[in-house]
């Protein structure tokens, strides 16, 4: 999957842009994400329902995956069942 690909959650409103990916299954709300929304929404898994925040970057512990939330939702992001974590805010620009 190319960086820049937009993925939609099958279980909630979340949409992400892929910054980096390692080839595993990217999920939201416990269900695999796809470029199109499925006809039948998936159930939101309560274990992956902490919510996503607009503009936050989500990463895995190994630094292989990075997803940018471009539309927030009730689900939370994971790869192959392992929850992603929020990356720290960027520093302010030093100039313009």
């Amino acid at each position: 999957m190319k960086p820049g690909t937009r993925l939609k959650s099958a279980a909630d409103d979340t949409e992400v842009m892929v910054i980096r990916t390692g080839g595993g299954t990217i999920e939201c709300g416990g269900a695999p994400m796809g470029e199109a929304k499925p006809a039948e929404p998936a159930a939101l898994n309560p274990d992956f329902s902490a919510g996503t925040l607009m503009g936050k970057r989500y990463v895995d512990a190994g630094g292989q995956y990075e997803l940018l939330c471009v539309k927030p939702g009730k689900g939370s992001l994971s790869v192959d069942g392992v929850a992603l974590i929020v990356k720290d805010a960027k520093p302010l620009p030093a100039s313009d």
Partner: protein
Amino acid sequence: MATDGGSGPAIPLARWADRRLRLLAKETGSPRIAALDGATIVGERGANGGYVIGGRISAGIGGSRLMPAADGGWFALTLIRAEDRELLPALFLDAGLDIRDNDAIAAAVARHDCADLLMRGRLLGLPVASADEAPPSPPVEVMTRGPHRKRPAGHRPLVVDLSAIWAGPLIGHLLWLAGAEVVKVESPTRPDLIRRDDPATFDLINQGKASATVDFTDAAHKAALIALIRRADFVIESSRVRALRHLGIDAGALVRETPGLVWLSVTGHGATGEASDWTGIGNDCGVAAGLSRALADASGEIGYVGDAIADPLTGITGAIEGWRAYGSGQARRIGLAMSAITARALQEEREHDPAALHAELHAWGAALGQKFPYVRRREMFAPVRKPGADTARYFPAIVPC
């Protein structure tokens, strides 16, 4: 104008800035503002730094570049932070891109249409612009109104300045020149980096401000900050709207609840709607305003006009709008959009004196490689406080961090 022989042409729109400063001086009655001039306020950073007119590369550190896209459009991309370069593979749909190589980035721009890059760049939160877009928001927008406050004669306004870089701090500086007490509040983890990287400019626009550091992620610190805001007359911030919300600071509610509070939100492209999620800084906002296209029309060469010109134009505009709101006594949250303010300045200058504007743009376009115009360094009226030096005074309830 030129006094050292190597000094370049006047910065276009400096005369607009000058007329707005006259207005601010008249409305505030401040002799210190009356002593300012537009050429100094838009040009002092470039003069401090010995900037050279860079054409398609922005002056100073060259953080912004104008590049031709596949469809013939011109795409401006500002890359100041290493973290922003990590987003470039997603911008260009290319995992193999060498993100440190500016030539490779230009080649990637040439493979994509400008509109696609603009759409993806804005989703990614990158400061991007097209030379041929129209700003999406009004220059000045009253977003929220709140209760009135009657102030006693001679009241000295208190300004909580949460902003960084140039436009927001310049608003605080102009209000300070007009007599306000200003406290600059910074996060210890995300300070205003201009202090470190451009002290000559930082000192001019932050002199006389008290300095406090507050950990925005700490509940007690945040409560103390909100308590200070509730007794302030002005708040200036340049955060993205959602960033404030994520921090748990509800600007709209504070304005609705605090009599007379004037809250100035400095943004790249607007504080409401979709554009409130976009980022924008001075150079790319000038491109989004149509200024680079105007330069190409006048001179035949597209490029950046001035130095981050949207910043000083917005600083002056914000001070005028803020001062007027303060004078009304009504609490207001006012969104300031740097791209639209610059577009309005360009439009007003076109109406005011089209021949002079054309001549200035033509001269600027022809001056590639020349130095910025000489500006005499302004006098300092007060010292610059060390970061956090006044935390205990403004936030006695929290342990200084």
